């Protein structure tokens, strides 16, 4: 059965701190891994990772995938209160249409 584990489940930091969120997965015929940010409503897309070792960056956020060890990390540097959200990772299978969501990491950034 496909499985996704995210850690930590909850994290409280202060503005300016750097955080690393972890996602490990077991997915049959893995193809790619997506990261989403969920604030009050719908999750919004952050990154899609398909290849190992290639870092994707968007402003203060970056993410990388390790297909050998079956995990991905999401880094946020110089956190701001607006980064407070639940961060979800979702690996997909080879067909690209089976998304398995992890439980999420709830990040709270205090001023």
């Amino acid at each position, binding site marked *: 059965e496909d499985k996704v584990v995210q850690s930590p489940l909850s994290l409280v930091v202060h503005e300016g701190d750097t955080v690393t969120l972890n996602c490990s997965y077991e997915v049959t015929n893995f193809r790619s891994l997506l990261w989403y940010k969920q604030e009050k*409503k*719908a*999750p919004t*897309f952050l990154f899609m990772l398909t290849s190992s070792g290639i870092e994707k960056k968007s402003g203060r956020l970056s993410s990388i995938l390790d297909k050998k060890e079956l995990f991905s990390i999401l880094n946020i540097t110089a956190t701001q209160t607006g980064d407070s959200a639940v961060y979800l990772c979702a690996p997909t299978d080879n067909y690209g*249409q089976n*998304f398995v*969501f992890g*439980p999420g990491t709830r990040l709270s950034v205090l001023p």
Partner: protein
Amino acid sequence: GEEVAQTPKHLVRGEGQKAKLYCAPIKGHSYVFWYQQVLKNEFKFLISFQNENVFDETGMPKERFSAKCLPNSPCSLEIQATKLEDSAVYFCASSPHTGANVLTFGAGSRLTVL
């Protein structure tokens, strides 16, 4: 349209009543997904469609839940005889037709069963 449109935003039902939620995927997207999120917990996959055909229904409770995606109509998720535990936010998402895809989510429909 360029967004996944879900209606209604909030629906309140008494136990035993029927609830029906709607989703219009992004124009040109072939896949539609329904997820249930209870109390901001995990996303539970319910069902996915490829156009009007069921693609994967492994998450769908067999007894009271049904879903359709008909041509030229919004997709729908219907719950017969709602129970308290059906209270959740139901998210619809859509994705394009091939390849490693990105799911785009709607804003969700909050169902409250009293």
